[in-house]
């Protein structure tokens, strides 16, 4: 293992401290936790937006804290859900009297821990609503999940639900819009190489020099198929076709698209993938309203990418374009 770290079991707290030091006017640490909050949290009269999950997916989720996006992100150990007590502290720190909305990625551990935290918060008199994101079309169940996994599409849920919350919407209005995003967003990823969990010390899986894995999860969970590596055009085609096969989008519709790097893939390659993605969407009669290319939801130093397509309507367009000042997402 070759990593720029101090001790493997201190990577998360070291990262959290360094992140806050990078954005001292925007972020603060909730004492005795690994939960990070907007500097001005709790914002009175606004629904608090809380997300989080295992670390190793940076800039998710703390990079999405800021006006117009998340109020709090709770960091767990690498690829491990934060515990309910931590999430509870996050919920309390986000509650400005109008309740708290949770954005949870669909992994067994995340759902269990966040739902338990929600129950504890409700017992303390805080109203809580939630959405579980399951945008990955690759596999139905995996070693980490019952149902579909939540991956890069989660970032668009953060953005749109965050804009809705910033506008002063109620918990129920935010829930409606978040559900709409989840119903209309699909993603799929692929990998060339594995990441290495610091505490494990060796790569999570092995792919041969000439191999790639289609449909792999952001923790290295098995995907659909391992096969010889193909060209960027072929990879983009396979990912987009599987997404469009899963969600029929009428011709003439507007979509947002995200080409997301998994940690070790250069932007150059992401743009090469994006070129083909745009072409296929156009051939399918779809108008790309906005494009995001970069690292949004990574898997340590995994090489690979994912593609996300979100079908838009006027409401979602407005919310997607609303101002936002999170470190990893600016509008």
């Amino acid at each position, binding site marked *: 293992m070759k990593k720029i770290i101090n001790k493997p079991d201190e990577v998360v707290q070291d990262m959290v401290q360094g992140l806050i030091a990078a954005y001292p006017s925007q972020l603060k640490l909730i004492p005795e936790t690994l939960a990070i909050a907007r500097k001005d949290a709790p914002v009175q009269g606004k629904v608090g937006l809380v997300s989080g999950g295992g670390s190793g997916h940076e800039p998710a989720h703390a990079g999405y804290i800021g006006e117009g996006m998340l109020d709090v992100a709770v960091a767990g150990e690498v690829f491990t859900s934060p515990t309910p007590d931590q999430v509870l502290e996050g919920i309390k720190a986000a509650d400005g009297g109008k309740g708290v909305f949770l954005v949870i990625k669909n992994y067994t551990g995340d759902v269990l821990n966040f739902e*338990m935290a929600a129950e504890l918060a409700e017992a303390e008199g805080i109203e809580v609503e939630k959405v579980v994101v399951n945008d990955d079309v690759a596999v139905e169940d995996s070693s980490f999940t019952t149902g579909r996994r939540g991956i890069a599409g989660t970032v668009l849920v953060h953005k749109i639900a965050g804009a809705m919350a910033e506008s002063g919407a109620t918990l129920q209005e935010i829930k409606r819009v978040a559900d709409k995003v989840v119903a209309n967003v699909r993603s799929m990823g692929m990998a060339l190489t594995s990441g290495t969990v610091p505490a494990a010390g060796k790569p999570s899986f092995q792919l041969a020099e000439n191999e790639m894995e289609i449909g792999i999860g952001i923790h290295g969970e098995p995907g659909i198929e391992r096969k010889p590596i193909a060209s960027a055009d072929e990879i983009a085609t396979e990912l987009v076709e599987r997404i469009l096969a899963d969600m029929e989008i009428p011709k003439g519709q507007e979509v947002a698209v995200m080409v997301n790097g998994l940690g070790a893939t250069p932007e150059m390659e992401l743009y090469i993938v994006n070129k083909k993605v745009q072409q296929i969407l156009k051939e399918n009669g779809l108008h790309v309203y906005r494009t995001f290319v970069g690292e949004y939801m990574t898997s340590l130093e995994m090489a690979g990418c994912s593609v996300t397509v979100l079908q838009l309507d006027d409401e979602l367009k407005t919310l997607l374009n609303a101002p936002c000042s999170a470190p990893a997402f600016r509008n």
Partner: protein
Amino acid sequence: MQLDVKKTIEWLQLANTKIQEKKDYLTSLDQPIGDGDHGINMARGFKEVEAKISGKDYKDISELLKDVAMTLMAKVGGASGPLFGTAFLKLSTSIKGEATIDAKQFASALDAAVTGLKQRGKAEEGEKTMIDMWAPITKLFQQEEGITADKVVDTAKMALEKTKEMKATKGRAAYFKEKSVGHQDPGAASSYYIFEALAEIWKGDSKA
């Protein structure tokens, strides 16, 4: 059976001793069908429970069990943390204000715990989870009479053996589906030691 604060602390201390002893065994159960850390996580959690409750003054069992629940959910982690946390939290809330509880009260507390586990884990009996240990034990306590410490151990042993034949449909083991058959469920196994400890504390209690 009579449980008071002192006896409950003894029960959980013994449960901790057993789980520490069986740490490697529990982990070995988790390796083929999970991610191989169940023993490590449970041992860490119960060690913290022991440290938290030993020598502390509790006004009732409910308060004690709430501490146990909060410690397990914070220190076990993964999926087991919130599940064992839920079980002990439900035990705690259903016996609020009681200085001592008998088998009948314990039965209704267990029933609340099983309901909580089903809700939290979105699972039913027969899906190869810890519920397949907690539910049979609950049914035993719900019998009006004739419950003995030995019967608790017998029921727990049988329940654990039964999980071997079950096919996992929930949790990480579900991913291995058919492959999960033939293995004891790790969560049911660690629950087994919790109930075995209870039975031994009960047996050592001459008044019971």
